[in-house]
């Protein structure tokens, strides 16, 4: 007990808040903060050692190409997870993000094709496609948020319902097929990179302009930081800023931790909740737009399998499903774990289905560690 009702000026030192905790409990407290990093490190180490052994020394895990493959693989999981991070910290859930991504992919493909065929230049068509995707996301988010915040329907139900609605609309708009016939140049927006590196003879580093090469040189060429990766990095930076440096982020934590306290201190809880769902659908829509650029096509089924992977990334990253706790970096680590795992298992020639088993186990362990931590904190509350 350190609170005194007389004495000198207040001093703030970072003293041990749980002096009575046992070594084992201390280990759990420390683990709860760093275990995702440790797990990622161990997993990468494992693949670095195992991949060359399994391939007889012909394949390495850490290569420029593989690192870029992982970065590209992470994009949709991460973008869906970023919005979800805000919503879950605010004690909600959004089950519609997978189909919102699909819907946005279809809408942006239709918008790009339509405006290009109507005579708009390529760049303008892509911008129109982006705005159409964003408008789609905002509309669904507004729909979700208003029903959740104003009509007090549980988020699970509302977003489950809206995911079916959006699914139907995506399939209707795409006429149950892939939206193709986009201008060829779209491909460059979705696949070109900041730099290119060609290994070996006649190779070298090229910035911005993609070298016109064929044959062996093309096979030895790696793209470094494709544009969609850079867009995703910007979204991550914005999310970190918003959640950890602004009043919006602080209020998100407060609403998730104690809606009653948030309400009584005058935080506009309903308006904030609506904004959280708009934000969440918007990052999903960006994921849909980027997938349209990457495949030069709009797909009505691309997002569906990603919903649960993105929630898994958020949970592995330490966001509490009860709200009020979590970080953006945690979600990035969670998404990295899933992407590294998938890539590594493929390189080991392990059937890809194993990734589901491992991810499932990791999710459960993540929550177990989180719960043990909560138990210890409540037991050692200073009395």
């Amino acid at each position, binding site marked *: 007990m350190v*609170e005194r009702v007389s004495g000198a000026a207040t001093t703030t030192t*970072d003293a041990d808040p749980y002096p009575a905790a046992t070594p084992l409990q201390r280990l759990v407290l420390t683990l709860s903060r760093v275990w995702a990093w440790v797990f990622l490190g161990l997993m990468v180490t494992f693949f670095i050692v195992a991949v060359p052994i399994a391939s007889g020394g012909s394949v390495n895990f850490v290569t420029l190409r593989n690192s870029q493959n992982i970065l590209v693989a992470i994009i949709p999981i991460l973008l869906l997870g970023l919005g979800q991070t805000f919503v879950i910290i605010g004690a909600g859930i959004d089950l519609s993000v997978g189909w919102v991504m699909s819907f946005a992919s279809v809408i942006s493909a239709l918008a790009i094709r339509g405006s290009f065929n109507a005579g708009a230049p390529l760049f303008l068509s892509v911008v129109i496609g982006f705005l159409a995707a964003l408008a789609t996301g905002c509309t669904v988010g507004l729909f979700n948020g208003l029903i959740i915040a104003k009509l007090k329907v549980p988020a699970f139900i509302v977003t489950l319902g809206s995911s079916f609605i959006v699914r139907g609309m995506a399939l209707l708009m795409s006429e149950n097929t892939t939206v193709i016939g986009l201008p060829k140049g779209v491909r460059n927006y979705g696949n070109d990179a900041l730099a290119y590196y060609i290994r070996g003879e006649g190779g070298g580093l090229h910035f911005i302009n993609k070298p016109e090469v064929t044959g062996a040189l093309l096979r030895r060429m790696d793209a470094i930081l494709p544009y969609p990766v850079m867009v995703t990095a910007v979204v991550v930076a914005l999310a970190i800023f918003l959640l950890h440096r*602004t009043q919006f982020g602080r209020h998100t934590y407060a609403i998730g931790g104690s809606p009653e306290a948030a309400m009584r201190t005058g935080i506009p809880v309903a308006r904030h909740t609506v904004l959280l769902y708009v934000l969440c659908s918007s990052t999903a829509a960006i994921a849909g737009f980027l997938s349209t650029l990457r495949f030069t096509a709009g797909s009505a089924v691309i997002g569906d399998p990603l919903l649960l992977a993105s929630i898994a990334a958020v949970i592995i990253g330490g966001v509490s499903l009860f709200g009020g706790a979590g970080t953006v970096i945690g979600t990035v680590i969670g998404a990295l774990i899933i992407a590294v795992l998938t890539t590594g298992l493929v390189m080991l020639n392990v059937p890809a289905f194993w990734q589901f088993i491992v991810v499932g186990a990791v999710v459960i362990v993540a929550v177990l560690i989180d719960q043990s931590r909560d138990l210890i904190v409540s037991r050692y509350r200073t009395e």
Partner: protein
Amino acid sequence: MADPILSIKGMTKRFGGLVAVNDVSWDIYPGEVVALLGDNGAGKSTLIKCVSGVHAAEEGEIYFEDRLRRFSGPIDARREGIETIYQDLALANNLDVPSNIFLGREMKNRYLGGVIRTLDDRRMLEEAQSALASLEIHFPTLTRPIESLSGGQRQAVAVARAVYWDAKLMIMDEPTNNLGVPEQKKVLDLIRKLRDQGVPVILITHILPDVFAVSDRLMVMHRGRKVTEKVTSETSTEELIQYMVGARDDSKVQ
């Protein structure tokens, strides 16, 4: 005698056929701790909720700092300086002490003419430190979630928040409930501290030792009516119990 800071005149509040508060008049003066006593259902909470803007009374007037007030809601009352601390304290347990003190009223750095605003956590920490120091409250660290603090410490955070935001009248609802004995003493010390700094306190309680430990005056309610008002040093536990159960009633004697 100085003018009262809060003056309730003829307040009545009904819920359907039930008269929860019946024609109550009551004055609170600067720098005093006044206990509001009564059994469950006596109307204490309803009376306080009328003062703090949660309920609107059917009849009666509230004068606060010599002006007739009609609060549109609890946030309005709080803005005018009437701070009510309920048992749940309205704190976010997942946030640290400065975040709680500034919750909903965060200090910000402004960039590009206010287009970009970031939280000024350093300044909020400094302000929180001095707010706690003014109440002689000392925590080992302010930058951890307050979930690790005890009930009494969290009560202190809620009080420090109210004082920082310039509370002119503090209403505390059963503040020592659910606390261990040493913690109860600290909360009572805190109430004395508030009085010494000139902030009057209305203490809602049914714990009589607390009443004698810290209050200057007291008022007892029974079935919605004010049955007596006393100077604490001039009454006794036995007498108060008689008022609380309705065996004595000064309002009927006159």
